[in-house]
């Protein structure tokens, strides 16, 4: 009996230490921005563990790049909803008036034309598009690294997220500054040595190769820099969690 009491006390103390440890971990995670915008609710602990681990271990790592010989002969463009009228007008005009407006917590809110973006230092990467459904393909992506645009507009030091919107209704996402400043995060305008086809997000797609395909939103028209996702939509970070999908898709 005394043995069981001792065991009981030890277990009780361990449990108390565990609870105190969890509370401390929660405070540290909040202070260092390790909790994702959709980190509440029953799936919050799993999402927070995943996002915090990725940010602690893989913040600066580079997505795998492939040799030219591995570019998929048959890239898969996924299904698209019928485009809205505004998009069809742009498409008929050859996208010459397409613009990207950058606003929010920036020193100089700016509207970029596609020509402005092309005049920035452009780069190319051969990376894989990975869909949450399970399929994938490799393609070459050509564009302006997002951090060049962010440097131009002057991001406030307290900024934490970049929100990006498609011309298509209710299609918006956000990424943290670690992904926004990442050298492989491209405002993509070209694919496989040609213009970026509409099927693949042309004329402008934000490619985030360290996350699943649904974070690479097509037909981008607006970037908003912010320190909190509370004011956007339902405050969960993007349209994905509002539709039941995780905000952080680097898994």
């Amino acid at each position, binding site marked *: 009996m005394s043995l*069981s009491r001792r*065991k*009981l006390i030890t*277990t*009780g103390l*361990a*449990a108390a230490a*565990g*609870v105190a440890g969890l509370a401390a971990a929660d405070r540290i995670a909040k202070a260092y921005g390790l909790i994702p915008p959709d980190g509440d609710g029953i*799936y919050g*602990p*799993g*999402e927070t*563990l*995943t996002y915090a681990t*990725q940010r602690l*271990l*893989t913040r600066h*790592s*580079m*997505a*795998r790049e*492939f040799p030219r010989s*591995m570019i*998929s002969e*048959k*890239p*898969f463009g*996924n*299904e698209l909803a019928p485009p809205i009228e505004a998009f069809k007008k742009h498409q008929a005009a050859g996208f010459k008036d397409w613009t990207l407006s950058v606003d929010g917590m920036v020193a100089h809110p700016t509207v970029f034309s596609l020509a402005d973006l092309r005049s920035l230092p452009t780069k190319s990467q051969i990376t*894989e598009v*990975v*869909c*949450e*459904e*399970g*399929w*994938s*393909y*490799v393609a070459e992506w050509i564009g302006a690294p997002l951090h060049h645009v962010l440097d131009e507009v002057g991001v406030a030091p307290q900024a934490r997220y970049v929100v990006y919107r498609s011309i298509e209704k209710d299609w918006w996402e956000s990424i943290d500054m670690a992904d926004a400043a990442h050298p492989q995060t491209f405002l993509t305008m070209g694919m496989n040595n040609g213009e970026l086809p509409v099927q693949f997000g042309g004329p402008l797609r934000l490619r985030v*190769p*360290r*996350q*699943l395909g649904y974070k690479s939103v097509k037909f981008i028209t607006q970037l908003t820099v912010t320190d909190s996702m509370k004011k956007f939509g339902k405050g969960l970070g993007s349209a994905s969690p509002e*539709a*039941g*999908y*995780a905000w952080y*898709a*680097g*898994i």
Partner: protein
Amino acid sequence: MAASPTITNISVSRTEAGAPPRHSLLVRVTHWLTTIAFLALLVTGLEIVISHPRFYWGETGNSGTTPWLNLHIPASRDTVPTGYGYTMPDQNGWSRYLHFEAAWLLVITALIYGVGSLLNGHFRRDLVPAPGQRSWSAIRAVFARYLRRAPDIEGAHTYNVVQRLSYLGVVFVLFPFIIWTGLALSPGFNAAFPWFVNVLGGRQSARTLHFLDTIALTLFFLVHVAMVALTGFWTRTRAMITGDTRSKEGR
């Protein structure tokens, strides 16, 4: 954590005086945590698979390429040709949230079980075949007894050689490999540790191996439950919950 004192109490009060519990507290707690994680991962994993019920080898694969394995079942998305004129209910959102949360439960449980079993000698004492069991004839004898449906007198206190080898395979091969192939599917993790997916032959190979390992684990699960049912479902299940060594045969 808070549940531990209760379980300790039950094991002390219900086990015959002096007799050690059939399964240690560590084994009992981690067994059921693993069961919960496994079932959650299995159900949500199948839900994720039906969004693209085809498998490929190599780095890439999609609806435009030829699959190695086509499950020929209806899919939950219309991005994949199945030959059926309809789609299944799409539950990918919460399935993915729960899949990754349950994966954390599995990984943390595995760490506790692995470290604890190294420290307390569980692997050496209970899982590595005992000196008298290390022969083909010992293995044949177990199967012969299974086929005769002869009562297993010592089975209430120790594992036979077939059990030991099965559990070693599950603990040291199937579970580590399911975690490995799962991590190899994370684009963020791949960026930091590219060899993790490269040595498997690429992303689609990792996904296919993850699926094949799921089948292996599911077969183990079914045979395991069938054996428990054949040898006395409630006695064996009670032994895994309370540690009670009493059995109908023993009284």
